């Protein structure tokens, strides 16, 4: 598959504050793995390869052709690696929801470092910590000093820490989209301008969703998914269930909706609306079956946890500010 006259592409994959699902999405090329290895040299991939931070530090600047960086920036090590890989990479791709917008770990911006530490190390019902010990970035043991990275108060997306060339959204990105982008790079196809979202559509989930929609205003009350009997056919929103489809780019194959679960927005907002929450509010407003302001207000108030739902994957990168400690 590789053009033998051209040098092989140097590819790196790195994870910061992530779950590993993005790396699994790379591995989910399955039997095509042999083709990928034929077209590209993986020069750094901690999930799989024996290449160390020191080796990356020793690389000349711009040595790596493309780095797929997944995960949010949660601690000092994540930040260090983001800056290092920016320097060493010609093209830095924010790969997946966490690098793109902060992702699920970004929900931590609804709370604080102190709240997280207290819950995990003091209050947790199974924790026995009478001395109130918290993890320390530096700790003296008889044999020497042990170090761990600093846990920051705020979670940030990759683009909030370094310049990003492309954003490839999704939690994780659909493997087929990755393969398309990968092939475009390998074949030298023209790439979009830096800062673009790639591997996703400009249209919304609703444009790809096969559930039946009417043009009527239908919502009189919002329901949680278990409060209705989903008929498996009708648009979730028209059944009164919050679905992030109108505020989310397509490209994933409406995979959650195919599983009869409403969209939660991992592909991020469409190009015309940079903030998923405000896009969602305007989409909902057109569907509510009421004319009076107070009536609309009452219906909107039947939505439980609107911030945690509208910004499920995007809190750090959103216009919403964090909880103030």
């Amino acid at each position, binding site marked *: 598959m590789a053009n033998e006259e051209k040098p092989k592409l140097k590819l790196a994959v790195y994870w910061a504050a992530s779950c*590993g699902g993005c790396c699994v999405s790379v591995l989910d090329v399955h*039997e095509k793995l042999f083709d990928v290895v034929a077209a590209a040299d993986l020069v750094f991939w*901690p999930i799989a390869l024996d290449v160390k931070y*020191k080796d990356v530090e020793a690389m000349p600047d711009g040595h790596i052709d493309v780095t797929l960086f997944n995960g949010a920036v949660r601690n000092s090590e994540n930040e260090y690696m983001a800056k290092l890989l920016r320097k060493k990479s010609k093209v830095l791709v924010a790969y997946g929801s966490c690098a793109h917008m902060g992702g699920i770990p970004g929900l931590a911006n609804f*709370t604080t470092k102190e709240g997280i530490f207290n819950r995990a190390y003091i209050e947790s019902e*199974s924790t026995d910590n009478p001395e109130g010990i918290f993890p320390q970035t530096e700790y003296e043991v008889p044999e020497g000093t042990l170090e761990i990275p600093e846990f920051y108060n705020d979670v940030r997306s990759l683009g909030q820490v370094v310049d990003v060339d492309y954003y490839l959204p999704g939690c994780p990105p659909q493997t087929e989209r990755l393969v398309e982008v990968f092939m475009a790079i390998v074949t030298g196809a023209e790439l979009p301008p830096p800062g673009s979202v790639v591997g996703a559509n400009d249209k919304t989930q609703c444009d790809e969703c096969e559930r039946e929609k009417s043009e009527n205003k239908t919502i009189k009350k919002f329901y949680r998914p278990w409060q209705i009997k989903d008929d498996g056919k009708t648009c979730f929103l028209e059944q009164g269930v919050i679905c992030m489809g109108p505020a989310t780019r397509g490209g994933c194959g409406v995979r959650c909706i195919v599983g009869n679960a409403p969209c939660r927005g991992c592909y991020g907002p469409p190009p015309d609306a940079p903030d998923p929450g405000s896009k969602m509010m305007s989409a909902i407003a057109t569907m509510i079956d009421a004319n009076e302001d107070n009536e609309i207000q009452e219906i909107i108030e039947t939505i*439980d946890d609107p911030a945690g739902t509208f910004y499920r994957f995007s809190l750090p990168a959103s216009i919403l500010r964090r909880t103030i400690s």
Partner: protein
Amino acid sequence: MKRYTIDPITRLEGHGKIEIFCNDDGDVENVYFQVPELRGFEKFLEGRAVEEASQIVTKICGVCPGCHHMASGKATDAVFGVRPTSAAAKLRELFFMAHFVHSHIAHFYALAAPDFVVGPTASPAERNVLGVIGKVGVEIGTEVLKQRRIAQEIQALLGGHQTHVVMNTPGGVRKGLTEDERKTVEEQAKGFVEFSKFSLKIFSDVVLANETYVDIILNGPYSLNIYSMGLVDENNKVNFYDGKVRVVDQEGVEHCKYAPEEYTQWVAEHVEPYSYLKYPYLKQVGWKGFVDGKDSGVYHATPLSRLNASDGMATPLAQAEFEKMYETLGGKPVHATLAMHWARLVELLYSAERALELIQDPEITSDDIQAELPNVPNEGVGIVEAQRGTLTHHYWTDEKGIIQKANIIVGTTNNNAPISMSLKKAAQGLIKKGVDVSEGILNMVEMAFRAYDPCFSCATHSLPGHMPLIVNFCDKDGNVLRTYKRDK
């Protein structure tokens, strides 16, 4: 004092770090295993709708998202005081068996096999999954990738999203199975059974037929005399999806058998200031530090501990392999850490057989997949076996089902103390005065933690397989005398 810093160890979810301290004679004084990462899921679940939890917690781990989805789904059932319908429970378990098949295949071939099929001290350039394929042939390598793909496809079919599954609702599942789909999956499950038998044969031919390997397993520095934990059904047979948690002691005598909601009576977690990961232990025995023996509450939750804690496997072929394993290794319980690899393959066969049983159950295509929810939500605990250990989710909600508090004990967390101890023991056994600390020796230290298949390791899905390693030899003041780097 010499200090060996292994940082970063890769194939961990996030990052792991090992510090080995040697005295001036070159003997190991102490070893510290550090997990430098925390994301705080328990805290930011607060305020979320409880039925959303099972889709949020899959993001704890993209390697075993299905385990978190199932434990969370069961905790959410308990919050609503509902049991899923019989068909829904079977669909969930079927999904879960496919999840085990995919994970156990990946772990054995990509992670464990390089050390045995290629050899523990073979060249690191060879000691990876491609090296394994080189030894066993491309045909088998392709078959491995294919079987894992099929397992992923079954999960996507039942669970919607191929990685971060969206299957569970309180008291049920979102999607049933058609007869056409059932027929396809039935053939695939038969393929799993054959492939699992084949994998056990490879283990038998390559590992058990090699006296050196058997000696490493039984007599190498890879043994801990600790308690064993695992979920069992009403007959004390291994079960991954449902049952009670049973713990047996070093002689195999039952220490406790608890229902999910009783877990805080039996398990507690210790905190150390140098790691973000806590150290669970048996509460009634107590935390006595990083020591084994009956007076120390340290236990493990692994394929081997699950077999140790059970009276057998619930399917016939897996039961025969269970008996063969204990017969070969000198009776039950077994404490040899590396026997975890064998136990994992016995579990692979069980998962395949159980998947076939479930897909042949007439009820599996029933559309009765959602139970009524008559109760006001409040509190619930859900427990399943993750591939890497017993997984506990516990939620408290208000009357609207909004989470007020959450507590989670993750599979691998159970093994934090045992992994730390195994690493120390392996290092002490292998790094000694006068021993040239070669790459092969260091790999054999790594084998101690690799056996646990830690979930902060995404090693289960790794391509070429060994950890990157930097070893700094320092003088007493910490000045680096020599740096050892393992080559690719």
